[in-house]
């Protein structure tokens, strides 16, 4: 493929990915409000549009029209930059996430992924590590005790659970033999005995899946690990002093992180886009995307379900759990997986 064709195709993919991601972020908020509402035996948003489907649009307009207050006591440069950092790194990880097989349109063959680097998983881990800066700097630059405490707690929690997250993924890497997300998914094709799919969760990584799930909840600051933003504890934690669009950016960053984590779990543990394929070629190109989105939706639903059900951890319980339980279990999982793979080959 020539350079111009490659550039044009990449730009089209980037535009589609960003639009889909931002719409998905908005509608994940809607999904959360509806599901948590039903769990709590009430309707969620129902008035704005059918089933409240236009609620995210109304929320967006509200955020745009609200007064964008910059309190006088904040450290302005970092106060303005911090939500940008959080949102930029939350949106960047979509660039290496594959959603389907290669498609061929009018002779141009392209993977359904913005770019397939051979260290794709490390790129996502690196971008997640850099996202901690948004939270830490927001908490500090707000110059208020609630914000500082919330920011420090949130960033300490994120850094601690990144370790367990990374280690739980190493088992998957050993099984698949590559960092590239496309190759990891391709290694999960086929079935055992004809009907059990060869997903990583059935290939012995079930403990790693649950470690990943728990560490992901802590990474994205969601219940039961959402002490840094609990209203009863710290007013609003690191985003206390933020209003309108900057607050909306933190909000979007949190939901974009949730979606990234859900996509990663689907790719690494649940088989990516593998599923029954049938029908004409155009359907066969779209069906993998549908299976992938189904898995992501199920994962997000579990996220929201847990949010509506569990109470939150106290901060010291949270840190003790991360370092004293999750990390040793992740290391044990790594050792056992490595032993099994080494003895097999």
């Amino acid at each position, binding site marked *: 493929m020539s350079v111009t064709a490659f550039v044009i195709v990449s730009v089209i993919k980037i535009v589609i990915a960003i639009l889909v991601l931002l719409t998905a972020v908005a509608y994940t908020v809607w999904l959360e409000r509806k599901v948590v509402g039903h769990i709590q035996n009430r309707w969620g948003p129902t008035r704005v549009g059918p089933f409240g489907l236009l609620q995210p649009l109304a929320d967006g307009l509200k955020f745009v029209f609200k007064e964008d207050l910059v309190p006088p006591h904040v450290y302005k*440069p*970092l106060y303005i930059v911090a939500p940008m950092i959080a949102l930029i790194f939350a949106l960047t990880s979509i660039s290496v996430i594959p959603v389907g097989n290669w498609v061929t349109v009018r002779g141009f063959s392209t993977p359904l992924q913005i770019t397939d*680097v*051979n*260290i794709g998983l*490390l*790129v996502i*881990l*690196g971008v*997640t*590590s*850099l996202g*901690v*800066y948004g939270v*830490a*700097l927001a*908490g*500090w630059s707000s110059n208020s005790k609630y914000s*500082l405490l919330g*920011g*420090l707690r949130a*960033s*300490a929690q994120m*850094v601690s659970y*990144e370790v367990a997250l*990374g280690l739980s993924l190493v088992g998957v890497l050993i099984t698949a033999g590559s*960092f590239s997300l496309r190759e990891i998914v391709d290694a999960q094709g086929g079935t055992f005995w004809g009907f059990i799919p060869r997903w990583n969760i059935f290939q012995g990584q079930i403990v790693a899946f649950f470690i990943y799930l728990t560490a992901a909840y802590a990474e994205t600051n969601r219940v039961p690990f959402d002490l840094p933003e609990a209203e009863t504890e710290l007013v609003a934690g690191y985003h206390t002093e933020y209003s309108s669009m900057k607050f909306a950016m933190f909000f979007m960053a949190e939901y974009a992180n949730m979606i990234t984590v859900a996509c990663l779990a689907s790719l690494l543990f649940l088989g990516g886009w593998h599923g029954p394929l049938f029908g004409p070629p155009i359907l066969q190109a779209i069906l993998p995307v549908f299976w992938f989105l189904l898995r992501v939706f199920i994962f997000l639903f579990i996220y929201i379900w847990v949010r509506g059900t569990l109470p939150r951890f106290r901060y010291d319980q949270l840190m003790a759990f991360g370092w004293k339980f999750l990390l040793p279990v992740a290391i044990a999982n790594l050792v056992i997986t490595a032993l099994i793979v080494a003895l097999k080959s």
Partner: protein
Amino acid sequence: MLHLTLFSIFGLICVAGAINLLVQRHPINSALSLVVVMGSLAAEYLLLGAEFVAAIQVIVYAGAVMVLFIFVIMLLNAGEEERTRGSRVAVLFGVPGMLIGSLLVAWVLVEHSGTQAVAPGALPGPPKTIGWLLFHDYLLPFEITSVLVLIAIMGAVVLASPPQSIQQKREG
């Protein structure tokens, strides 16, 4: 050509970040400039073809070590540096003098050391190669480094723990 352009751009960003680190008065701005330096170094590693090292540079250095630096600065609430009354003549002659001196030293060293430019892709890039090197050829240094980090962790725990022996002596 593109390679040289990208190298120069990231090199300039790196040097600008380093100079900004020294010039800024507030320590948090210096720490963030250091993060920029780490990031541009990762880009340089990518240009050399060492993609695993670049990713690990971002994850470990920029994403963990510098976060801890920033924690310390935030917790200690170190304010802006105080300015002392320096000498303008020193700055006027000193900074260009330092630049010329260091350029001379660098030029002499490069000319007489027999090194050549590294072609992109000459260094081991894929994680598989690095893993093989780390666990076969360089296993002993790797294990000794991990013992070193363990010693540092133990030292930090001892230094940060409250002085219990004094309290126990007081309580009899």
